[in-house]
């Protein structure tokens, strides 16, 4: 019996954004929202109903008005069900909520419990937080000066993180060894450094190797050689997780040194001079690292059906 009931409810669940919010917007926002008609205002009773999150906060952040899964315990349901002339009825002005709308709200509260944000099995940002811990934030002036000197885009990984992401995608031609040297002032903060297609050479690697929080380094299609990669492997950034050497001239001899990067998780070597032999040797040394050596495009198409023309049969 219960199962049947659950199935029936699952068939057409009430959706907050689609079903509930419009009712609240029409009848409650005037007093219980952070703004109404584009104007900021103080919500009455310190109660906001203009998003799921603030509804769950309740009145003044203390008194809940909605108890998920329990319409009968929800103050909001009690108030809207009062007779029109009752002094506590909500909304206080105009008609009381029609039965159909009250029913929707009741069903929403009754059903809402299972569908909350599902926690992820792994937190993709745990590493960003732990590596950033205790790192002093770079002064804004230093960030601006470096951006101006190098033409790079420099931004934090997220608000409040001391770690920075630096890339030259807007103007790779300005990325050269001098630019990398100029990033030295931000050495402790750089976590993601994209130097793809820039003019950097092996001499930049010494500076890059001194970046203690570096997690991702992109050197694709640069002039970096075995010499630089060797230096990176020997004295490289201790936290490095991802290294992109696609389109460089590195060989098996160079990548052998990368065994020193104990945390490396992915390495990109397509269109380099490294071979399967070198990759296997490195895999043995770094079993946790995925090495991308090939571009695995599908085989060419067989002869085509001359009639094949997607969309040729147009329907109404």
């Amino acid at each position, binding site marked *: 019996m219960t199962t049947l009931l659950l199935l029936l409810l699952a068939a057409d669940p009430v*959706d907050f954004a689609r079903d509930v919010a419009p009712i609240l917007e029409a009848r409650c926002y005037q007093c219980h929202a952070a703004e109404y008609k584009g104007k900021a205002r103080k919500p009455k009773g310190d109660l906001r109903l203009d*998003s799921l999150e603030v509804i769950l906060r309740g009145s003044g952040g203390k008194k809940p008005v909605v108890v998920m899964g329990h319409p009968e315990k929800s103050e909001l349901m009690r108030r809207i069900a009062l007779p029109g002339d009752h002094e506590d009825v909500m909304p206080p002005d105009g008609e009381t909520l029609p039965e159909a709308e009250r029913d929707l709200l009741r069903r929403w509260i009754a059903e809402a419990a299972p569908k909350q944000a599902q926690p992820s099995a792994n937190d993709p940002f745990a590493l960003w937080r732990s590596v950033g811990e205790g790192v002093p934030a770079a002064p804004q002036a230093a960030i601006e000066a470096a951006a101006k000197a190098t033409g790079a885009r420099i931004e934090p990984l997220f608000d409040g993180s001391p770690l920075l992401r630096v890339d030259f995608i807007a103007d790779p031609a300005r990325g050269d060894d001098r630019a990398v040297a100029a990033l030295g002032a931000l050495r402790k903060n750089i976590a993601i450094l994209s130097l793809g297609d820039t003019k950097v050479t092996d001499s930049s690697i010494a500076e890059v190797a001194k970046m203690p929080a570096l997690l991702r380094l992109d050197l694709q299609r640069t002039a970096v050689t075995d010499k630089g990669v060797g230096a990176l492997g020997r004295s490289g950034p201790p936290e490095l997780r991802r290294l992109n050497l696609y389109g460089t001239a590195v060989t098996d001899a160079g990548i052998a040194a990368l065994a020193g990067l104990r945390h490396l998780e992915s390495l*990109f070597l397509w269109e380099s001079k490294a071979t399967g032999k070198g990759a296997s040797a490195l895999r043995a040394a770094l079993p946790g690292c995925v090495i991308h050596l090939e571009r695995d495009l599908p085989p060419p198409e067989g002869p085509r059906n001359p009639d094949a023309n997607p969309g040729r049969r147009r329907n109404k």
Partner: protein
Amino acid sequence: MRLKRQFDRCDDCTRRDFVAGAAKGLLGLSAMPWLTRLAAAAEEAAIPLGPATARNVIYLYMAGGMSHLDTFDTKPGAATQGPTEAIGTSADGVRVSQHFPLLARRMDRVAVINSMNSTQGAHEQGRYFMHTGYMLRGTIQHPSMGAWLERMRGRLNPTLPGHVVVGGGAGTASRGFFDASMMPLPIGDPTAGLSNSRRAEGVSEQRFEDRIHRLEKMNAGFRERYDGKALDDYAKIYEQAVKLMSSSDLAAFDIAQEPAAVRDAYGDDRFGQGCLLARRLVERGVRFVEVVSGGWDTHSENFEQMEDLCPPVDRALSSLLADLDARGLLDETLVVLTTEFGRSPDISQDRANGRNHYPKAFSALMAGGGVRGGRTYGRTDAEGREIVESPVTVPDFNATIAHALGLPLEHKIFSPSGRPFTVADKGTPVLALF
């Protein structure tokens, strides 16, 4: 700066301006639009920067409504399945239809959502809802996800457009109520390069510059008298176009530079070449590219049409994933495949085995950009009719894209008329996909 300019302008407000303004006000038109903008600018708080698993999005749109039963939610043995067969994939427990043999080899990188549902069962409304997260209304035009990304995060490469749509049409990518500068660049034929991006024959660089200069001079008087946001925006678009014409980034649009073998691997059709173009653009810093595949509205001859519709998508998507992966771009590029709704489990006999519109349950894909592949999320019943596990609404789906991009879901952006909007309209991101 702008603030000052606008106040200065107030000072030399002429009687004519005053009358014009008053007339507009009395006629119910927006009087002095910059005034409301001034208020909006003052109110606009800094846009919070969330941690992002993805930096770019390649958004593959199956226009017309893709049958879930014949693609990614197969039901072998069910009466509703028809002749379509399911095949195994590189991911344990994930099956796709026989029409996706190439993609089957890469499903370990792809997450399938089989519990999509929409409230909109007509094409225009469904397409609009999917692209914007909001329902189509007469009073406002909502921005699509690429426009939200550009609005909240700006461009990675200022020379190139912030977002591009290949083979789009009504109801696909749109700037909505955002500034004209946030318009998506539409590309009709991906093999044609960027149209009108070269100087006309016989026009030297010097002459071109002279012409632009004269244009600016002619416009200057007008702009002095009627300075306004819209004019600034359009002037900006001109500036950007001229800058792009002389930029090496223009080559990103030229897929003829790709080896023939690569172009063949993506498939010699508009969708395949569009996907190849998308990769080239993302590589050069365009953060959001939509590629549209048309013709999925299989009211009749559904099964025959699937044989034509699916293979180009199978080929293009497989190539795209492999190509992005080899370049180290897949980790940061969220590849999405979606549609406006699914198609009816019931096979309509009177229309030569067709399937009709079915917004109640359908399928979508996500790969790369921090999404963990090789899994399915959500489930429909044994006949593909009802969602029985973890429903994902259209706003939830868009919120998931926004979450991957680190866009703040609660941050309000005001329309020119002062109404507050949030990206993905209060959808809940499906965190289990990451």
